[in-house]
C-alpha cells in the first residue's frame, strides 16, 4: 500500500446531488472495517470538474480517477485499489479512440488539456479545512505582500499582470482598483460578486465551494492594496454549500488571524461579511447588487457616479467577481511576469468555463485565454453526444451569442469574441447539435431575460417581452416576414437605450442567431418548417406505409389515440388530433414514423 494514501471524493453540488455523501459514508465504513481508518484519509472536496461522470473519486497520490462511482463499488475500490494497488478497471474512463481504460487523470484528455490556476485546489483539498489550503501555499501570497510589498507595489503587480474582470465585461482589474484611491472617504468597501446567474454557469459556485480561502485571500490582498477595511461576498442563496463553506472559511481565517484587526501584525484590518442574495439575475449587475446589500430592491442605477466613487452605502467601492479575486493570490505569489505567460496580448491568464449542453464531457474546465472553441469542445469536451453534428455553441449566457461551426477556430479572448458577436461573459458554454432549433434557443434566452429584467427601464422591460412574444409566434409558425425586421430594429433600440448591461446585451442571442442562422427563421416563417425538427408546433407525423409492419405499438402508446389501423397493415396518423408529442417516433422499431 502506498504512503499518504488519500481518497478524494468530489462533494461539489453536482456530485453531491448524485450521491457523493453516500460514497463518503460507505468509504468510512469500509475503511473502518478493513482497519485502514488511520492510514487512509477521506477528503470530501469541492468540484473536481468532471461533472458528466460524477460522482468522481480520485485516489492519491497515484491520481487514479474513478467515474460514476456508486456505494456498491466502494468495497471493491478499497479491496483492490487501496489494499492491492490494482485498478478497478470497470470504473475507469475509456479512451475514446482505443477504448482502453485510462488509469490516471493525466491520461484523461478532459484534464490533460486544461491549465488549472484558479482551480488549482478545487477538487484537491477539503475546503472546510484551512490547513489544507495553507499546505498548498495558501495565504503565502498575503504574507509576502504584507511583509515585502507596499500597497502601491501590490496594485502595480496586479495592473502589470493584465488581469481583467472575469465577470464578463473584462474591465482591467488594476485600473479598477486604482480608481478607488483618489476619492477621499472615511469608509471604502470591496465586494466579491458571487451572484452567478447565467443559465448553465457554475464556475463561481465551484470556486466558492471548493476553494473559498482563495477568494478571501484575494480580497485581503485587494483590501491591502486599496486601503479598505471591510468587504462583502454577495452569494446567491441558491448556493447553500458555497455559503456554508465560505462562512466556515471566514471563521477559520479569523481564528488564524488572517481576518480581523492587525492582520499578521501588519496593521491591516479587514472584516468580511457574507450576504445571501435572494435570487435575481439582475443582482449580478454591480449597482443592483449593492442596492440589494443595502436592503433595497435590486435594481441597477445609472452611472456616473461610478461605484469606485459612490458605491455601497454611498461609499467608494470596488466590485470584482469570484474568479477575478481568486486569481489575485496566484499573481502576487508568482509575479505578474509568470501570469502574463498565459493567454493572449490583451487577455492574460486563464478562464474557467462551464461546459454544458450536447457535449460528451460536461463539466468545469480552465484553459489559457486564447484557446480555441474547437479545442475546448472537441479535445476537452470530447465532442458531441451520440455522434450528432455540431451546430453552434452559445457563449456568454443570455448576453452572449451563438457561434456556428465555421467559427469554431476563433480564439477565446475578450476582444475576439466580442468581434464575433458573442462575449466571454462569465464563462457559460452551451453546446448545441443539429437537433437544436436556433429560433427556439433565441426564444429560450429571451424568455430568461424578459423574466429577469428588473423592469426599471422601458426598452428592456417592455422590449424583451415583445421580442419574446415575436419569437414565440415564429416558433409556433405564426410569424410574419416583417417580424425579422421588427426584431432587428427592436434589438438595436434596446441595445442603444437600455439602462444597464442586462438590457444592453439582452438582444445579443437574437442578433447572433439572425446573423448566422437567418435561414432557420425564414424556414419557420415562410415554410412553416423547423429545420431542426424541434419545434413541435411545426412538425407533422406520417407513417411510411412501406416501412410500417402494422405492429400497432404506435397506436397503443399514442396518448390521444390518433393513430388507427389494422394489425399487419400500415397504420395512419390523424393529423388533426395529433398533439405532436413524438411518442410514436420513439416507440416505432422500424423507423416508419416520419417526422417532418
Amino acid at each position, binding site marked *: 500500500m502506498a504512503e499518504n494514501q488519500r481518497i478524494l471524493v468530489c462533494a461539489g453540488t453536482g456530485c453531491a446531488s448524485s450521491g457523493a455523501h453516500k460514497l463518503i459514508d460507505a468509504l468510512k465504513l469500509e475503511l473502518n472495517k478493513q482497519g485502514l481508518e488511520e492510514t487512509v484519509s477521506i477528503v470530501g472536496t469541492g468540484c473536481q470538474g468532471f461533472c458528466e461522470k460524477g460522482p468522481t473519486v480520485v485516489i492519491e497520490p497515484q491520481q487514479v480517477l474513478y467515474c460514476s462511482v456508486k456505494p456498491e463499488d466502494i468495497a471493491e475500490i478499497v479491496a483492490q485499489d487501496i489494499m492491492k494497488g490494482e485498478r478497478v478497471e470497470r470504473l475507469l474512463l475509456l479512451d475514446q479512440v482505443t477504448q482502453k481504460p485510462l488509469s490516471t487523470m493525466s491520461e484523461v484528455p478532459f484534464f490533460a488539456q486544461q491549465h488549472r490556476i484558479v482551480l488549482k485546489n478545487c477538487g484537491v483539498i477539503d475546503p472546510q479545512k484551512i490547513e489544507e489550503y495553507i499546505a498548498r501555499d495558501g495565504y503565502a501570497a498575503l504574507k509576502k505582500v504584507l511583509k515585502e510589498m507596499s500597497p502601491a507595489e501590490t496594485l502595480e503587480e496586479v495592473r502589470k499582470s493584465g488581469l481583467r474582470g472575469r465577470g464578463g465585461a473584462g474591465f482591467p482589474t488594476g485600473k479598477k482598483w486604482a480608481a478607488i484611491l483618489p476619492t477621499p472617504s472615511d469608509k471604502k468597501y470591496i465586494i466579491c460578486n458571487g451572484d452567478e446567474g447565467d443559465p448553465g454557469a457554475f464556475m463561481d459556485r465551484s470556486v466558492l465551494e471548493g476553494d473559498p480561502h482563495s477568494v478571501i485571500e484575494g480580497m485581503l490582498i485587494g483590501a491591502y492594496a486599496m486601503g479598505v477595511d471591510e468587504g462583502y461576498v454577495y452569494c446567491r442563496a441558491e448556493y447553500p454549500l458555497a455559503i456554508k463553506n465560505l462562512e466556515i472559511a471566514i471563521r477559520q481565517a479569523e481564528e488564524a488571524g488572517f481576518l480581523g484587526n492587525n492582520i499578521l501584525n501588519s496593521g491591516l484590518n479587514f472584516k468580511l461579511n457574507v450576504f445571501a442574495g435572494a435570487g*435575481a439575475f*439582475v443582482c449580478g449587475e454591480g449597482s443592483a447588487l449593492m442596492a440589494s446589500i443595502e436592503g433595497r*430592491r435590486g*435594481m441597477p*442605477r*445609472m452611472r*456616473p457616479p461610478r461605484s469606485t466613487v459612490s458605491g455601497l452605502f454611498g461609499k467608494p467601492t470596488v466590485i470584482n467577481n469570484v474568479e477575478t479575486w481568486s486569481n489575485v493570490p496566484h499573481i502576487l505569489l508568482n509575479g505578474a511576469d509568470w501570469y502574463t505567460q498565459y493567454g493572449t496580448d490583451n487577455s492574460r491568464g486563464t478562464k474557467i468555463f462551464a461546459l454544458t449542453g450536447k457535449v460528451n464531457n460536461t463539466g468545469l474546465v480552465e484553459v489559457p485565454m486564447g484557446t480555441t472553441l474547437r479545442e475546448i469542445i472537441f479535445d476537452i469536451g470530447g465532442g458531441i453526444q451520440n455522434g450528432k453534428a455540431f451546430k453552434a455553441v452559445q457563449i456568454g449566457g443570455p448576453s452572449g451569442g451563438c457561434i456556428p461551426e465555421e467559427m469554431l477556430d476563433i480564439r477565446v479572448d475578450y476582444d475576439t469574441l466580442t468581434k464575433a458577436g458573442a462575449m466571454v461573459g462569465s464563462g457559460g458554454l452551451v453546446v448545441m447539435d443539429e437537433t437544436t432549433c436556433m429560433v427556439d434557443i433565441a426564444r429560450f434566452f429571451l424568455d430568461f431575460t*424578459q*423574466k*429577469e*429584467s*428588473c*423592469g*426599471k*427601464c*422601458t*426598452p428592456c*422591460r*417592455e*422590449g*424583451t*417581452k*415583445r421580442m419574446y*412574444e415575436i419569437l414565440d409566434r415564429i416558433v409556433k409558425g405564426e410569424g410574419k416576414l416583417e417580424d425579422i425586421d*421588427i426584431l432587428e*430594429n*427592436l434589438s438595436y*433600440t434596446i*441595445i*442603444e*437605450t*437600455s*439602462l444597464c448591461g442586462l438590457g*444592453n446585451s439582452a438582444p445579443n442571442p437574437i442578433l447572433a442567431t439572425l446573423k448566422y442562422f437567418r435561414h432557420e427563421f425564414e424556414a419557420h416563417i415562410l415554410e412553416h418548417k423547423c429545420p431542426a425538427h424541434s419545434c413541435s408546433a411545426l412538425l407533422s407525423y406520417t407513417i411510411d406505409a412501406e416501412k410500417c409492419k402494422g405492429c400497432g405499438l404506435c397506436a397503443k402508446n399514442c396518448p390521444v389515440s390518433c393513430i388507427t389501423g389494422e394489425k399487419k397493415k400500415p397504420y395512419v396518423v390523424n393529423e388533426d388530433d395529433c398533439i405532436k408529442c413524438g411518442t410514436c417516433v420513439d416507440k416505432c422499431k422500424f423507423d416508419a414514423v416520419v417526422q417532418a
Partner: protein
Amino acid sequence: MLITITIDGCEVSVPKGTSILEACRMHDIQIPTLCYDPELTSDGACRLCVVQIEGNHNLPPACRTTVWQGMVVQTQSPKVRAARKTILELLVANHPLDCMTCQKMGNCFLAEYAYDYGVTGEIYQGEKRKLPIDDGNPFILRDPNKCILCGKCIKACSQIQGKSILDYSFRGFNMQVSPAFNLPYNESDCDFCGSCVSVCPVGALTEKHMVGKGRPWEIKKVQTTCPFCGTGCNFDLNVKDGKVIGVTSNPDAPVNGKALCVKGRFGTDMIHSPNRLTTPLIKKDGVFVPAEWDEALDLVATKFQEIKNNYGADAIAALSSARCTNEDNFVMQKFMRAVVGTNNIDHCART
C-alpha cells in the same frame, strides 16, 4: 464655470455640471421626458430623453448625462427620433387606449408624445396588463394598467413626503408600483398627501373626486394659499363653470413646491358643501329667518350703536378670525377701535 456644447448645430454655454436635459431646457430645446422631475432625483428610467452624442455608440439619456466641453449633441436626429418612437410604441402597446374617458386626457404626457411621434401602439401586439383598480379610498384612484412605471410617484413618496409607501414590486413585464405586499392604499400606511398624484404623467394616479368633473382645457387654475394650517402651502384651485372641482399642486409654490397634505389637496370640497350659509339670518322668536343684507346689517349697526350709547363702547367685543385674511382682520380691528371705540378685540391667537 461655463461649458460650451453644441446642441443640434447651435453652440450654447451652460454651467459645469448641468445635464444635457437641463441645458436643453435652458435654451428652449424640447426633449420629451416621462420620469424626470426637477424636484426629484433623476433615475434615467423611462429612456425617452435619449440623445445622440458624437463619438458615443449608444443613446444616453439627456437627464442623466452631464455636459462636457465640446460635447456635440443631436436631440432630433432620425436615429434619436426612431429610438424614442420605439420606446413610445412599447409603452403604448401595454397601455389602455380608453383615452376618451380617461381623466388625464389633455394633460397626459404619453398621449402628447405619442401624437408628436405618430405612435399607434399597433406594432407590438401582445399581452397587456389586467390588474385590479385600487379605488378603496376617498381620495386617490389608482389604475395600475395605465402606469408606465416611470417611478416618479415612488420618489415623490420617499423624497417629498418621506414616507416610502410606494415601491416597485415584481419583475420585468410584471413589474408594478404598489404599496407593500401589493395592498391597496387604504390598507397601507399612506397619509394621502397625494404627492404621488401630483407627479404622475399619465392617468394611473388621479384625484378621485375630480373624475368626470372637467377637462384640462375647461379648467381655470387659480393659485392661492391653503386655509388649513399655518404652513402656508400654495396650490391651484381648479375651477370649472364657477365651481371649484379640486386642487392640483403648483410646482412654483414657494413653501411647499408640489407637496401638500390630505386636507389641502382633498379637503376643499367643503367650499361647495351644502351646509354653507348663503344668506343673512335673523333670529326671530328663537328661529332663524332669512333676511336681506340691508335688514341684517342695519339691525347689527343699530344694536351696536344702542349698546355703545347706553353702556359704553367697552360693553361690545369682537372675536376676530385667524382663518380669515389679513385684510379682513385689519378692517375688523379698525372697526372695533375706530368705529365702536374699544380695544375689546381678540382671536384664538394662541391656538
